[in-house]
């Protein structure tokens, strides 16, 4: 089934929740994301058995969550996106729809600080538990040390007196 017919199918069930389209999918209302996901999985014609990828993008003024769904039986795929405010990024967990969302949402929480409501075990998955901040946010400033381990190292090729350390910068 092509993307447009998939979107129309969702639109039939959720007429007001499907927002603008793009080539591979559609934006949906963040409030209704979980219900839409449930529909995508359970609907006979959509049969989205798998959430292959769930991630976030920090676009500066807001966050965008991206859900890649695929169906093995129907051999089609769809991308759902939602936008969230940066200062209050809260959304329903889809862990009860696809079990695989558990760790993917934990990663998203770890790196972007998105809070997933009703997630069974929302804690950091890669960084240490006591890490401060969410590194993939655009306004993240890395700490200068972690447990006494400094984040800087002197560059031996640059003589004394000049700013000669490798620091956490974008350079």
């Amino acid at each position, binding site marked *: 089934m092509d993307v447009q017919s998939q979107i129309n199918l969702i639109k039939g069930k959720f007429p007001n929740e499907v927002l603008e389209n793009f080539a591979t999918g559609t934006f949906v209302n963040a409030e209704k994301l979980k219900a839409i996901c449930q529909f995508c999985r359970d609907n006979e014609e959509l049969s989205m058995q798998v959430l292959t990828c769930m991630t976030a993008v920090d676009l500066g003024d807001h966050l965008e969550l991206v859900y890649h769904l695929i169906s093995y039986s129907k051999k089609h795929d769809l991308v759902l996106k939602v936008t969230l405010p940066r200062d209050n990024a809260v959304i329903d967990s889809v862990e009860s729809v696809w079990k695989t969302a558990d760790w993917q949402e934990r990663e998203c929480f770890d790196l972007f600080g998105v809070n997933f409501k009703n997630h069974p075990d929302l804690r950091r998955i*890669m*960084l*240490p538990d006591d890490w401060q901040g969410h*590194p993939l946010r655009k306004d*993240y400033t*890395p*700490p200068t040390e*972690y*447990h006494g*381990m*400094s*984040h*800087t*190292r002197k560059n031996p090729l640059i003589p004394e007196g000049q700013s000669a350390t*490798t620091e*956490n*910068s*974008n*350079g």
Partner: protein
Amino acid sequence: MDGFLLTTTEEFLNWNRKSSIWYLLFASACCGIELMQTGGPRTDLDRFGAVPRATPRQADLMIVAGTITYKMAERVRLLYEQMAEPRYVISMGSCANCGGLFQSSYSVLKGVDKVIPVDLYIPGCPPRPEALADAVVKLQAKMMKEKYLRTVRA
């Protein structure tokens, strides 16, 4: 008697030590692949008496092969502390030396010498097995120069 050997106790002990450098079977990134190669038939660390051990309690040498993140750094320090003295560390590859390719990352330790003392640094990304074998030979030379009886605690 056809022949005889003369040596000092110290030299004999050092010869024994350098002929059985047991290294910790530990790798944290792609340098680990080269570490495995070094144990393979071409460079064959076994011929120096260097064999991998699966526990730090039996290891004399830790080869830090790969990127160390801050989360891992504390485990590396723990593993090092679990090794019996005298113990040696080879920092293998750019990542272990200084953070390497990933030194601008927020989560990567900028050189393993920030958490444990390092005896030998091998440059390279990753170093070739020959380079690691050479490091083991250099470590043997270092061991031979040590005053083992005076440094080790009874």
